[in-house]
């Protein structure tokens, strides 16, 4: 690939998705963009680059961005964050929101929806405690294709075996040939929207819980800060933010502080999440 073409694609991806592509990822760019070039009846990446330069076709630019963004996900990924949600975050919110009985949860960069549906399964298991409550789970992703997949809630045999306990598969899925579809009841608990984390987040409203895991790792420092500060503006003062195991707010923003003893769990610095009395902090 020509250097000027690589630079052009890298700049485009940085602008549209925040994704930082270093020169050693040229192979990745080539392998992921060749199918896009073929789809658009172009001979190769030089053609694709030339078309992008001369014709700012939105659907072509979207195809390029979607091809390059990572859509790695699994049900109950890393497990621990979901244990903390069930044993610490949810019981606390049930006390602090007892008067309005309304909780809003955001799965940011939700990919094909596994994180959002995992939360829906946990909430469904707690249905008796949640009678009379309105709980919104909103999944957003930059990729229209991923949002569509998430809404459909159809997964391969391989996907439903990664992280999903078999009892949950039996309880919450319908089998259709070699595919498994999330039950209608669970799909109704979650809504999915196409949304760019680098854009204006205010239309999403305020959240009590934000899952933004394994997203920042793809961004450079200023973009990480921008995403974190954007998320902070959308959070309740005593809300919680989940980051991935390899991610932190340290050195990026002072709008968040760690929830003591809980690795990967943060809360707005100005307010702060305080576990309900009687709840023990789970050692991370």
């Amino acid at each position, binding site marked *: 690939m020509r250097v000027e073409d690589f630079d052009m694609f890298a700049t485009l991806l940085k602008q549209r998705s925040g994704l930082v592509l270093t020169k050693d990822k040229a192979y990745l760019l080539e392998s992921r963009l060749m199918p896009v070039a073929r789809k658009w009846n172009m001979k190769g990446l030089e053609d694709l680059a030339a078309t992008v330069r001369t014709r700012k076709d939105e659907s072509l630019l979207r195809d390029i961005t979607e091809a390059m963004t990572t859509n790695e996900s699994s049900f109950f990924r890393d*497990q621990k964050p979901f244990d903390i949600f069930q044993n610490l975050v949810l019981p606390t919110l049930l006390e602090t929101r007892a008067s309005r009985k309304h909780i809003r949860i955001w799965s940011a960069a939700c990919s094909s929806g596994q994180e959002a549906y995992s939360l829906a399964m946990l909430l469904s298991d707690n249905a008796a405690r949640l009678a009379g409550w309105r709980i919104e789970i909103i999944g957003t992703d930059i990729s229209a294709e991923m949002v569509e997949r998430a809404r459909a809630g159809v997964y391969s*045999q*391989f996907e439903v*075996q*990664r*992280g999903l*306990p*078999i*009892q949950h*598969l*039996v309880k919450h899925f319908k*089998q259709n040939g*070699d595919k498994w579809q999330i039950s209608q009841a669970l799909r109704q608990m979650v809504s999915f929207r196409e949304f760019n984390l680098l854009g204006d987040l205010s239309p999403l409203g305020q959240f009590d819980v934000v899952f933004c895991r394994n997203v920042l790792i793809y961004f450079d420092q200023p973009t990480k800060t921008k995403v974190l500060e954007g998320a902070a503006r959308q959070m309740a003062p005593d809300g919680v933010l989940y980051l991935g195991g390899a991610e932190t707010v340290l050195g990026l923003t002072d709008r968040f502080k760690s929830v003591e003893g809980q690795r990967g769990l943060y809360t707005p610095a100005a307010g702060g999440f305080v576990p309900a009395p009687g709840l023990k902090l789970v050692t991370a």
Partner: protein
Amino acid sequence: MKSCLVVDDSRVVRKVARKILEELDFACTEAEDGRQAMEVCASQMPDAILLDWNMPVMTGIEFLRRLRKMNGGDAPKVVFCTTENDLAHIQEALSAGANEYIMKPFDSDIIQTKFQQVGLL
């Protein structure tokens, strides 16, 4: 070190599963069918059993039902690993006392997460 009994009539499957499990620090034994598996369990109950369904002599589900009635047979975590991938088989396995269920083909990630889910890792 925890122990795992790998029960499958395919030598290749046993070999692949054994390699994955040994990397996860399990001491493995093997059986070709349910009857051989019963003999292993009668002499020493393993911590985990990775169990195929369709085997000659004694099937996996028949073995599991007998195992759960044996003295100490409620202790091992049993993870089915089979090409039977329909809901009816999964439900039958769970009611017979299976702890987890893997639909073939499998890889090391799937074995690892399923073993974690039942508290073996």
